[in-house]
Protein backbone atom coordinates (compact mmCIF):
# COMPACT_ATOMS: atom_id res chain seq x y z
CA UNK A 1 0.00 0.00 0.00
CA UNK A 2 2.81 2.37 0.85
CA UNK A 3 4.36 1.72 -2.57
CA UNK A 4 1.00 2.34 -4.23
CA UNK A 5 0.63 5.64 -2.42
CA UNK A 6 4.13 6.59 -3.53
CA UNK A 7 3.00 6.19 -7.15
CA UNK A 8 4.70 2.85 -7.81
CA UNK A 9 2.82 1.52 -10.87
CA UNK A 10 4.04 -2.04 -10.32
CA UNK A 11 2.64 -1.96 -6.79
CA UNK A 12 -0.71 -0.80 -8.18
CA UNK A 13 -0.67 -3.64 -10.70
CA UNK A 14 -0.03 -6.09 -7.86
CA UNK A 15 -2.88 -4.62 -5.83
CA UNK A 16 -5.31 -4.98 -8.75
CA UNK A 17 -4.11 -8.50 -9.36
CA UNK A 18 -4.48 -9.40 -5.68
CA UNK A 19 -8.08 -8.17 -5.37
CA UNK A 20 -9.40 -8.71 -8.91
CA UNK A 21 -10.87 -12.16 -8.26
CA UNK A 22 -12.53 -11.03 -5.05
CA UNK A 23 -14.18 -8.01 -6.68
CA UNK A 24 -15.20 -10.06 -9.71
CA UNK A 25 -16.72 -12.77 -7.51
CA UNK A 26 -18.75 -10.28 -5.46
CA UNK A 27 -20.19 -8.79 -8.67
CA UNK A 28 -20.84 -12.04 -10.45
CA UNK A 29 -21.62 -14.48 -7.62
CA UNK A 30 -22.92 -12.52 -4.64
CA UNK A 31 -24.95 -10.03 -6.72
CA UNK A 32 -25.19 -11.96 -9.98
CA UNK A 33 -24.73 -8.87 -12.11
CA UNK A 34 -24.82 -9.26 -15.85
CA UNK A 35 -21.38 -9.29 -17.46
CA UNK A 36 -21.55 -5.70 -18.73
CA UNK A 37 -22.79 -4.44 -15.36
CA UNK A 38 -20.16 -6.45 -13.50
CA UNK A 39 -17.43 -4.95 -15.67
CA UNK A 40 -18.68 -1.44 -14.98
CA UNK A 41 -18.71 -2.01 -11.22
CA UNK A 42 -15.32 -3.77 -11.37
CA UNK A 43 -13.67 -0.77 -13.05
CA UNK A 44 -15.43 1.68 -10.74
CA UNK A 45 -14.17 -0.17 -7.66
CA UNK A 46 -10.56 0.10 -8.78
CA UNK A 47 -10.96 3.70 -9.97
CA UNK A 48 -12.28 4.67 -6.52
CA UNK A 49 -9.63 2.63 -4.77
CA UNK A 50 -7.00 4.48 -6.78
CA UNK A 51 -8.57 7.82 -5.91
CA UNK A 52 -8.68 6.95 -2.21
CA UNK A 53 -5.23 5.43 -1.81
CA UNK A 54 -4.14 8.37 0.33
CA UNK A 55 -6.92 7.70 2.81
CA UNK A 56 -6.27 3.95 3.05
CA UNK A 57 -3.67 4.10 5.76
CA UNK A 58 -4.62 0.85 7.39
CA UNK A 59 -3.19 -1.75 5.04
CA UNK A 60 -4.87 -4.60 6.90
CA UNK A 61 -8.30 -3.07 6.39
CA UNK A 62 -8.09 -2.76 2.62
CA UNK A 63 -9.78 -6.10 1.92
CA UNK A 64 -12.76 -5.12 4.03
CA UNK A 65 -12.81 -1.64 2.48
CA UNK A 66 -12.77 -3.00 -1.08
CA UNK A 67 -15.40 -5.59 -0.15
CA UNK A 68 -17.75 -2.97 1.26
CA UNK A 69 -17.16 -0.61 -1.65
CA UNK A 70 -17.91 -3.36 -4.17
CA UNK A 71 -21.01 -4.35 -2.27
CA UNK A 72 -22.26 -0.75 -2.16
CA UNK A 73 -21.61 -0.18 -5.86
CA UNK A 74 -23.37 -3.43 -6.79
CA UNK A 75 -26.41 -2.37 -4.77
CA UNK A 76 -26.37 1.11 -6.35
CA UNK A 77 -26.11 -0.50 -9.75
CA UNK A 78 -29.03 -2.83 -9.16
CA UNK A 79 -31.17 -0.04 -7.77
CA UNK A 80 -30.42 2.35 -10.62
CA UNK A 81 -30.95 -0.24 -13.32
CA UNK A 82 -34.32 -0.54 -14.97
CA UNK A 83 -34.39 -4.27 -14.41
CA UNK A 84 -37.34 -5.37 -12.40
CA UNK A 85 -36.26 -8.88 -11.53
CA UNK A 86 -33.78 -8.03 -8.79
CA UNK A 87 -34.51 -4.83 -6.92
CA UNK A 88 -33.71 -5.96 -3.41
CA UNK A 89 -30.25 -7.57 -3.26
CA UNK A 90 -31.05 -9.16 0.09
CA UNK A 91 -33.80 -11.10 -1.63
CA UNK A 92 -31.26 -13.03 -3.68
CA UNK A 93 -31.36 -16.79 -3.05
CA UNK A 94 -28.94 -17.71 -0.29
CA UNK A 95 -28.56 -14.06 0.65
CA UNK A 96 -25.75 -11.67 -0.06
CA UNK A 97 -24.35 -11.92 3.46
CA UNK A 98 -23.78 -15.67 3.17
CA UNK A 99 -22.14 -15.24 -0.23
CA UNK A 100 -19.91 -12.43 1.07
CA UNK A 101 -18.86 -14.57 4.02
CA UNK A 102 -17.88 -17.41 1.72
CA UNK A 103 -15.95 -15.05 -0.56
CA UNK A 104 -14.10 -13.59 2.43
CA UNK A 105 -13.06 -17.12 3.40
CA UNK A 106 -12.10 -17.84 -0.20
CA UNK A 107 -9.95 -14.71 -0.26
CA UNK A 108 -8.17 -15.86 2.89
CA UNK A 109 -7.50 -19.25 1.32
CA UNK A 110 -6.11 -17.64 -1.84
CA UNK A 111 -3.86 -15.45 0.30
CA UNK A 112 -2.60 -18.59 2.07
CA UNK A 113 -1.86 -20.11 -1.33
CA UNK A 114 0.79 -17.45 -1.68
CA UNK A 115 2.89 -19.46 0.76
CA UNK A 116 2.79 -22.60 -1.37
CA UNK A 117 5.50 -23.39 -3.88
CA UNK A 118 4.78 -21.89 -7.28
CA UNK A 119 4.19 -25.35 -8.70
CA UNK A 120 1.62 -26.24 -6.05
CA UNK A 121 -0.10 -22.88 -6.38
CA UNK A 122 -0.35 -23.29 -10.16
CA UNK A 123 -1.71 -26.83 -9.96
CA UNK A 124 -4.41 -25.99 -7.40
CA UNK A 125 -5.40 -22.78 -9.15
CA UNK A 126 -5.53 -24.35 -12.60
CA UNK A 127 -7.50 -27.39 -11.43
CA UNK A 128 -10.00 -25.79 -9.05
CA UNK A 129 -10.29 -22.10 -9.97
CA UNK A 130 -9.66 -22.35 -13.71
CA UNK A 131 -11.33 -25.72 -14.13
CA UNK A 132 -8.53 -27.09 -16.32
CA UNK A 133 -8.18 -30.81 -17.08
CA UNK A 134 -5.26 -32.96 -15.92
CA UNK A 135 -4.11 -33.06 -19.53
CA UNK A 136 -4.10 -29.26 -19.91
CA UNK A 137 -2.31 -28.78 -16.59
CA UNK A 138 0.26 -31.45 -17.43
CA UNK A 139 1.00 -29.86 -20.77
CA UNK A 140 1.21 -26.33 -19.35
CA UNK A 141 3.47 -27.26 -16.44
CA UNK A 142 5.39 -29.96 -18.31
CA UNK A 143 4.59 -32.70 -15.83
CA UNK A 144 3.03 -36.12 -16.51
CA UNK A 145 -0.75 -35.80 -16.32
CA UNK A 146 -0.88 -39.13 -14.45
CA UNK A 147 0.82 -37.48 -11.48
CA UNK A 148 -1.56 -34.52 -11.22
CA UNK A 149 -4.09 -36.16 -8.89
CA UNK A 150 -1.46 -37.11 -6.31
CA UNK A 151 0.14 -33.65 -6.59
CA UNK A 152 -3.25 -32.02 -5.98
CA UNK A 153 -3.72 -34.15 -2.90
CA UNK A 154 -0.27 -33.28 -1.53
CA UNK A 155 -0.68 -29.58 -2.31
CA UNK A 156 -4.09 -29.46 -0.62
CA UNK A 157 -2.63 -31.11 2.48
CA UNK A 158 0.15 -28.51 2.52
CA UNK A 159 -2.36 -25.70 2.03
CA UNK A 160 -4.37 -27.03 4.97
CA UNK A 161 -1.28 -26.82 7.19
CA UNK A 162 -0.53 -23.28 6.03
CA UNK A 163 -4.11 -22.13 6.38
CA UNK A 164 -4.49 -23.58 9.86
CA UNK A 165 -1.19 -21.96 10.81
CA UNK A 166 -2.54 -18.60 9.69
CA UNK A 167 -5.95 -19.15 11.33
CA UNK A 168 -5.39 -21.02 14.60
CA UNK A 169 -8.56 -21.98 16.49
CA UNK A 170 -8.02 -19.40 19.24
CA UNK A 171 -7.70 -16.59 16.65
CA UNK A 172 -10.17 -17.82 14.07
CA UNK A 173 -11.06 -15.27 11.44
CA UNK A 174 -14.71 -14.69 10.72
Amino acid sequence: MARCRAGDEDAWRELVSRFSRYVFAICSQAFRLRTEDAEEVFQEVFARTYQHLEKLRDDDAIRAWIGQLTRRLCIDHLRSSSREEIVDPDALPGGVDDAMETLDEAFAVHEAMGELTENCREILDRFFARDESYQTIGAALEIPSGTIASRISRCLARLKEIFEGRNPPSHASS
Partner: protein
Amino acid sequence: MTAYDEHRLAELIKALPPAPQAWVEAAQELPLARGRLDEIVARAEADLAFRDALIANLEEALRLEGYEPDAILLDELRRRLES
Protein backbone atom coordinates in the same frame (compact mmCIF):
# COMPACT_ATOMS: atom_id res chain seq x y z
CA MET B 1 -13.21 -22.40 14.08
CA THR B 2 -14.83 -23.90 11.00
CA ALA B 3 -13.21 -27.18 10.00
CA TYR B 4 -11.19 -26.59 6.86
CA ASP B 5 -10.65 -30.03 5.43
CA GLU B 6 -9.20 -30.48 1.95
CA HIS B 7 -12.66 -30.64 0.40
CA ARG B 8 -13.65 -27.29 1.90
CA LEU B 9 -10.37 -25.71 0.84
CA ALA B 10 -10.92 -26.94 -2.70
CA GLU B 11 -14.39 -25.39 -2.73
CA LEU B 12 -12.98 -22.09 -1.53
CA ILE B 13 -10.25 -22.09 -4.19
CA LYS B 14 -12.96 -22.70 -6.77
CA ALA B 15 -15.02 -19.79 -5.42
CA LEU B 16 -12.55 -17.25 -6.78
CA PRO B 17 -12.01 -17.85 -10.48
CA PRO B 18 -9.87 -15.32 -12.34
CA ALA B 19 -11.53 -12.11 -13.49
CA PRO B 20 -11.45 -11.56 -17.26
CA GLN B 21 -7.91 -10.60 -18.22
CA ALA B 22 -9.02 -7.51 -20.15
CA TRP B 23 -10.80 -6.13 -17.08
CA VAL B 24 -7.74 -6.67 -14.92
CA GLU B 25 -5.44 -5.01 -17.46
CA ALA B 26 -7.76 -2.00 -17.81
CA ALA B 27 -7.77 -1.53 -14.03
CA GLN B 28 -4.00 -1.96 -13.89
CA GLU B 29 -3.58 0.82 -16.44
CA LEU B 30 -5.47 3.34 -14.33
CA PRO B 31 -2.34 5.29 -13.30
CA LEU B 32 -1.42 5.62 -16.96
CA ALA B 33 -4.96 6.68 -17.86
CA ARG B 34 -4.93 9.15 -14.98
CA GLY B 35 -1.71 10.67 -16.33
CA ARG B 36 -3.21 11.05 -19.82
CA LEU B 37 -6.33 12.54 -18.29
CA ASP B 38 -4.41 15.17 -16.32
CA GLU B 39 -2.45 16.04 -19.44
CA ILE B 40 -5.60 16.50 -21.55
CA VAL B 41 -7.38 18.54 -18.88
CA ALA B 42 -4.31 20.79 -18.48
CA ARG B 43 -4.23 21.32 -22.24
CA ALA B 44 -7.96 22.09 -22.33
CA GLU B 45 -7.52 24.68 -19.59
CA ALA B 46 -4.65 26.35 -21.45
CA ASP B 47 -6.05 26.09 -24.97
CA LEU B 48 -9.66 27.23 -25.41
CA ALA B 49 -9.87 25.99 -29.01
CA PHE B 50 -8.88 22.53 -27.83
CA ARG B 51 -11.43 22.70 -25.04
CA ASP B 52 -14.18 23.73 -27.50
CA ALA B 53 -13.20 20.84 -29.80
CA LEU B 54 -13.40 18.42 -26.88
CA ILE B 55 -16.83 19.68 -25.87
CA ALA B 56 -18.11 19.57 -29.47
CA ASN B 57 -16.94 16.02 -30.19
CA LEU B 58 -14.88 14.45 -27.46
CA GLU B 59 -14.02 11.19 -29.17
CA GLU B 60 -13.07 12.76 -32.49
CA ALA B 61 -11.00 15.53 -30.87
CA LEU B 62 -9.04 12.97 -28.86
CA ARG B 63 -8.38 10.82 -31.90
CA LEU B 64 -7.15 13.84 -33.88
CA GLU B 65 -4.69 14.59 -31.08
CA GLY B 66 -3.42 11.01 -31.01
CA TYR B 67 -5.17 9.79 -27.86
CA GLU B 68 -6.94 6.44 -27.77
CA PRO B 69 -10.47 7.32 -26.55
CA ASP B 70 -11.24 4.32 -24.35
CA ALA B 71 -14.37 4.20 -22.20
CA ILE B 72 -12.66 5.06 -18.90
CA LEU B 73 -10.91 8.08 -20.40
CA LEU B 74 -14.11 9.32 -22.08
CA ASP B 75 -16.24 8.98 -18.93
CA GLU B 76 -13.72 10.66 -16.71
CA LEU B 77 -13.05 13.48 -19.21
CA ARG B 78 -16.77 14.19 -19.61
CA ARG B 79 -17.05 14.45 -15.84
CA ARG B 80 -14.02 16.74 -15.54
CA LEU B 81 -15.02 18.98 -18.48
CA GLU B 82 -18.52 19.42 -17.11
CA SER B 83 -17.30 20.44 -13.67
